[in-house]
């Protein structure tokens, strides 16, 4: 899963192609946004119903965008977390466990301290973020101090996380019913529920970290050349551990939004986040070998994946075709957004 820049990059036409590749994920998203309404139109056309392309599209409506945004919000937070790790050229597979633990502990804390946002229970929110940070910190320690490649370390930590969540709940689901907390989903500003704005806020924070803080820039340095960064006096191990910790915080954000969306915290809260988030990161154009991409790419990637998922249901694709279609569309999206001439091989 690494690639090396080719020794002699072809410099001809580079600017044009570079720009094209840079914006390719957005183009893919745009194409998808036109494609699904087309199928809607086709369906109505066949049924001889009145349907003006795009204008009459149910898919292309604010209400549906809100639905896509709701399902994308928790995934976006998790994907942003893992984006930082992938920028460093590492990978984090512990998100499912971390999300579950954070969700469950948040629910316990929240209910244990009063169960309403107006009480001390509100402290459960920072509490969950701290739990996420701690999980990420341990993950980073295992990876860095035991010198275990992050793929293995985080995979195992994921097992530990899911196991811990199971141990904590004993399999029970914890309902978080507080209206104020659930306003994340139920209260809408400008058609979008509050959780979308929280996710947007998270995205801006991540962007800020990525572009404006030393830590964020150091992710790029480590991803671009770890040995070189080390030689420049950068404490790479510290950057790595802090990266995993930061990822943990964003996983916890994802957990909070996931609980906010369903109102339930359980061991299964984290299920499915691993493949969705990493696929989204790659689809968005962040390279798995590190150093290229960022949180905006991830936003596009998450939107692409969620638009595909939503669109397939909206155009009435049978359930059994959906998996395969998603697979093929993901391959297509990655192919389109990869600068094939800038990499010599991919694993």
């Amino acid at each position, binding site marked *: 899963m690494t690639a090396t820049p080719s020794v002699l990059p072809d410099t001809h036409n580079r600017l044009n192609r570079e720009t094209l590749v840079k914006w390719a994920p957005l183009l893919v998203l745009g194409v998808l946004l036109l494609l699904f309404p087309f199928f809607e139109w086709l369906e109505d056309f066949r049924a001889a119903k009145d349907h003006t392309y795009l204008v009459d599209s*149910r898919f292309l409506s604010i209400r549906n965008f809100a*639905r896509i945004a*709701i*399902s994308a919000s928790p995934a976006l937070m998790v994907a942003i977390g893992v984006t930082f790790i992938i920028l460093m050229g590492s990978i984090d597979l512990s998100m499912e466990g971390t999300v579950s633990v954070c969700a469950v502990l948040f629910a316990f804390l929240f209910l244990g301290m009063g169960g309403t946002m107006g009480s001390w229970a509100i402290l459960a929110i920072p509490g969950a973020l701290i739990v996420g940070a701690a999980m990420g910190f341990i993950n980073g320690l295992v990876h860095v101090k035991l010198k275990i490649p992050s793929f293995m370390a985080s995979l195992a930590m994921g097992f530990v996380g899911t196991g811990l969540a199971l141990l904590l709940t004993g*399999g029970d*689901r914890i309902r978080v019913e507080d209206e104020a907390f659930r306003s994340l989903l139920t209260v809408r500003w400008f058609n979008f529920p509050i959780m979308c704005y929280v996710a947007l806020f998270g995205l801006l924070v991540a962007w800020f970290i990525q572009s404006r803080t030393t830590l964020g820039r150091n992710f790029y340095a480590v991803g671009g050349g770890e040995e070189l960064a080390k030689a420049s006096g950068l404490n790479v191990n510290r950057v790595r551990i802090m990266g995993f910790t930061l990822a943990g915080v964003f996983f916890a954000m994802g957990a909070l939004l996931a609980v906010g969306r*369903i109102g339930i915290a359980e*061991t*299964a809260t984290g299920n499915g986040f691993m493949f969705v988030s990493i696929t989204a990161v790659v689809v968005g154009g962040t390279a798995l070998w590190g150093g290229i991409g960022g949180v905006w790419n991830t936003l596009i990637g998450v939107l692409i994946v969620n638009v595909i998922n939503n669109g397939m*249901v909206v155009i009435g694709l049978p359930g059994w075709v959906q998996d395969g279609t998603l697979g093929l569309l993901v391959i297509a999206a990655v192919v389109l957004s990869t600068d094939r001439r800038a990499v010599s091989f991919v694993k």
Partner: protein
Amino acid sequence: MSFIKKFIEQETVSRRNFLLASAYGVAATAAMRMFGPSPAMAATYSDPTVAWSYRNRTNPYWNEIVSGGEAFIESLGKDKSALTHLINEGSSEKSLADVKALLAKTNGELALAIDTNDAPNARPVVESCVEAGAYVSTLWNKTDDLHPWDFGDNYVSHMSWSDEGPAEQTARILLEAIGGKGGVVHLGGIASNNPAIERLNGLKNALKDYPDVELLDAQPADWDTQKANEVMSGFITRYGDEISGVHCANDTIAYGVLEALRAEGMDIPIVSYDGNPQAVGLVAEGKILATVFTNPHWGGGITAALAYYAATGHFKPSEEPNEHREFNGPTIFVTPEDAKAFKASYLDDVPSYDWKDFWGPSNGPIVYK
């Protein structure tokens, strides 16, 4: 139309009958002991390990099953930690491997209650138990060609639920509630799972009597709340106001659907299945129109009990009629009118069952189509 009342009455009657029967049973074993172990009893064990093998702990359904298993263990005067848990995490491979490991460890002195995760997996599980001399009772998943009576005493019993009828009933409640016209959607379980198929069939059967209702769409939500939430969002986009009712394959799916509706500020009737405490609460609040309680607590306990009492020689499965070896579990409808009563008698205060009353609350033999 109080299903509950009828059910409780029926259960009390049978409980009484079987108390008598079990008293006779105790006397019989006592009598046998006087003459020493008979050759037919040679393969039984005085204190077999009791184990429950199930999918996971993240679904309340399985927690109910487990609580039944533990209640049974406590009825033997043991601590509930004496029950061995095997969790397969949705993997048939792990399910089988864990059983094999446990068989090796216990040397076959095992009474196993199991849902094998997937129908094909039942055969190898049963075969290895039989080979090792252990006693096994299965729940839910098995293939149609696998029958306890083909394996002598060691494959004690199989319990399942016939979901088509009850699902049809909930569907009728739903279709009545929407006034017999409009559109409904169905969110199903993992598509290949038997209950998922039966519950969708139930809806389809009911729809035959309601020509003005259209089944807009049916898609699998894999028994998963989050998936259900996303699928329902998609349905809302596609069909919008055409959806006048939702038929869910189980409670966990219903939770996801409810949240999707809540996000849209929509309020349309939905029906569900399984009768989890949370769902029953929602029925009582009127947010879910009806659910079906399958008494997993009893199912979990009695499946373990059957294996255990066969293993100890308390009864001899091969002498029982086929309908005592393959039978359907109980189903109880929970509707807003009786949800409170139901909750009080089944959930808040779990009834203590006689775990030797194997077939009392059961619901007739399994019929293959």
